């Protein structure tokens, strides 16, 4: 787990982004490449345009599940019901995914009881969250696993920059210590929000940094 790949969606061109087919093909193309290159687990930073941000998440998760992965979706952006219903509408099999509902916890609202939903307390610290992610991964039975974090920029609304950075760092360390280095990690950020400092800091976990764009 020694790479950071930064995929820049905004270079695809705004007109193209409006065309769903082009967009979805793009996701599939990059994910195909990703799966071929990183079967042993990887650390991926996804930059996607704000206007098609959730679509990018759905397509990425859908593709990974179709490729035989099982995963943990850490949702800071949306509450469990909203994520789960959208996944179901897109034909995503919820039995292969656990959703950690951080969004509801952030606003201290009543928690949802669902076997696919992992609730956390509103005062959960990053270290505890990492432990919850780790425990959730252990509940999944598949060989190929992923963690998808949605999103670092939303966490940054509630936590300091150093706390935000602690999440990928602690997660990497925890997975390494428990011999789970084959788990692939995805961190999504809206393109306009990508802070150079954040990308630079995350690249420190890697041997290689790749920035991809399709068009000018």
């Amino acid at each position: 787990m020694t790479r950071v790949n930064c995929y820049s969606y905004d270079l695809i061109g705004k007109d193209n982004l409006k065309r769903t087919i082009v967009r979805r093909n793009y996701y599939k193309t990059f994910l195909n490449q990703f799966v071929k290159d990183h079967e042993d687990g990887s650390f991926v930073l996804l930059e996607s345009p704000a206007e098609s941000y959730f679509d990018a998440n759905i397509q990425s998760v859908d593709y990974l599940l179709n490729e035989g992965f099982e995963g943990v979706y850490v949702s800071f952006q949306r509450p469990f019901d909203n994520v789960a219903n959208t996944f179901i509408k897109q034909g995503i099999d919820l039995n292969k995914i656990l959703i950690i509902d951080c969004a509801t916890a952030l606003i201290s609202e009543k928690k949802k009881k669902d076997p696919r939903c992992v609730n956390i307390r509103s005062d959960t610290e990053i270290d505890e969250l990492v432990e919850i992610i780790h425990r959730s991964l252990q509940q999944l039975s598949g060989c190929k696993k992923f963690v998808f974090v949605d999103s670092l920029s939303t966490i940054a609304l509630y936590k300091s920059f150093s706390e935000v950075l602690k999440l990928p760092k602690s997660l990497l360390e925890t997975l390494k210590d428990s011999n789970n280095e084959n788990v692939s990690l995805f961190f999504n950020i809206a393109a306009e929000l990508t802070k150079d400092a954040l990308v630079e800091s995350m690249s420190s976990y890697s041997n290689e940094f790749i920035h991809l764009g399709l068009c000018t």
Partner: protein
Amino acid sequence: MDYLAKLEEELRDIPSDYIVFLETSSDKFIEVSLAAIKLLANRNDSGIIVSANRPYKNLIDFYKKNDIDVSKMFILDCISKNQINTYNGGNVVFLENVSALTDISVHLDERIKMMNGSKFLFFDSITTMLIHNEPHIFARFVHSVLTKMRLYGTGGLIISLEDRTNREVKAEIAQLCDKVIKI
């Protein structure tokens, strides 16, 4: 240009609980905003309007003049309180000012829970609200409100002025929405 038709076209197939981010230019702002509220009022049983641009009375007169059914609307007026004698009641609450985000959030929360049937929330506008709030704090407020809206199945529309809204906050809010439209 018929902005209502344009909006209807853009939002034709989206569910009523979708949250839409609508960006427009200052020269079209009033017409687009009016078209948006007409559309939301036609599609829903009730709605909440967070007004940072027009005082309650002016807003209601404006809507009535444009054949919008105001009986189904509840207004959170964030600008009149310190300027005229105001009293809460009927379909309005006067809030201290646009920076009173906690108050706005509490009243939104109460109203969203009270309303039955299909309901909407309309922010008019985040550009004005951002003049009076720290971008980071405001983005957190919007995330909190939008999460509550999703928990209670409330759709909504957030209107913003192109080029005059903090780029990063706009991106943060846009990614929290289900659809982004530019008119």
